[in-house]
């Protein structure tokens, strides 16, 4: 797959194989590898859930109708793999929400990346943690130091909120041929030609856009 000689077949493959499982796998890998929470793939998750339910029903029907146990077990394996992807995807997101809950609730942009259930989870988490900190520590501190979000009253910004570290480096692979600007605006104009299948260690901020538009995948 990596060599340039079978590029043609790989291209063809990408056209024909955009099944939801492929998309889910991509979403899972990106979510695992990205330092921040990515926008929630709501439609995809709903479709995957629907397909999982359908297959579950089918499998029950197969068992009742006495279809070859081999065939049933193969369908079960396919189902298990999809369920694993879906669960792992949702769990990775929960882990990240726990890590960055105050940050996720601070701005609308960050909050819009979460699903409705995730928002509820983040809020409850944040409330519980804030309550716990207040009861156990903060109330006993001098008045200036009682905020959960700030070091002291004189802090201008919320400096006690863990934020995702976007200057980190990620491994990613290109899905198409395009030119990537290697620096943020104002820094430099150096660019790099990306070809399909090329693999890079690259600063996350630079490829963030390309990942969200599907031009690159995190691996």
């Amino acid at each position, binding site marked *: *797959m990596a060599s340039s000689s079978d590029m043609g077949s790989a291209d063809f493959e990408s056209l024909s194989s955009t099944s939801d499982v492929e998309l889910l796998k991509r979403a899972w890998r990106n979510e695992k590898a990205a330092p921040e929470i990515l926008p929630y793939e709501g439609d995809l998750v709903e479709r995957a859930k629907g397909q999982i339910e359908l297959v579950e029903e089918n499998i029950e029907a197969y068992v009742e109708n006495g279809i070859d146990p081999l*065939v049933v077990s193969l369908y079960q*394996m396919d189902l298990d*793999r999809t369920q694993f992807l879906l669960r792992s995807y949702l769990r990775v997101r929960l882990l990240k929400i726990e890590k960055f809950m105050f940050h996720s609730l601070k701005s609308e942009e960050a909050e819009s990346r979460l699903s409705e259930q995730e928002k509820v989870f983040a809020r409850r988490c944040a409330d519980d943690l804030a309550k716990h900190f207040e009861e156990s520590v903060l109330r006993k501190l001098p008045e200036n130091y009682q905020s959960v979000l700030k070091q002291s009253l004189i802090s201008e*910004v919320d400096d006690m909120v*863990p934020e995702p570290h976007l200057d*980190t480096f990620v491994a990613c692979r290109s899905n198409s041929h395009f030119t990537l600007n290697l620096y943020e605006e104002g820094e430099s104009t150096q660019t790099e030609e990306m070809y399909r299948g090329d*693999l890079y260690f*690259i*600063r996350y901020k630079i490829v963030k856009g390309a990942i969200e538009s599907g031009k690159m995948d995190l691996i």
Partner: protein
Amino acid sequence: MAGQTDPHVSLFSPEEVEFMAEDELVEIVPNMNMEPLNFIAGDFGRFIPQIPIQVPLWLAVALKRRGKCTFRPPGWLSVDNLTQVLEAEREPQSKFQALPFSYVEIARLLFDHARDDIPDMYMVRSLVEDIRDVRLHKLENNLGTFLGTSAVKMENVSAMEVNLVRPFARRALEAFYKHDKPEAAADRNTRSSRQPREANDEPRRPLRQR
């Protein structure tokens, strides 16, 4: 070596890397009749005795375990090709040779489940092991030649290899980037006092001299 696989440090566990490799297509020759399988992952079949067919590796292994098919080992997994690859990998200053992204995992699964379908199995296995070792050694050496502070191209590096060097490469590149930034010093001072250093609790190891 650099970036030893500590499950808490590496992003994808070995099982997860294998899980991804199991979706690669391989060719099998079934020995039974079976209607097409309409999986969530796609449609495969129908299966007709002696007619080769492409299926994902996990399905191939499942059928093989029940004695329902034989594998057709992929072309790259032959003594001839692997010998060539190994020689090329051993050339000083050579690039990484083109191998499937998941070559380690695919080979491993075939060795575990389809040993009777691979000609010269023992030879092939030891070649794959040698290639893996040579490449890991090379990868380790290459880490010393990282250039640029924004993007580093890794040609023909496989899934397992990326996963292995990722923690080290990430820390090294982060450090390079920090020192390269013009406003680095000022920024760092304000940041370290202001920001709790993102929620990253990995131990910070200094760059080792090698």
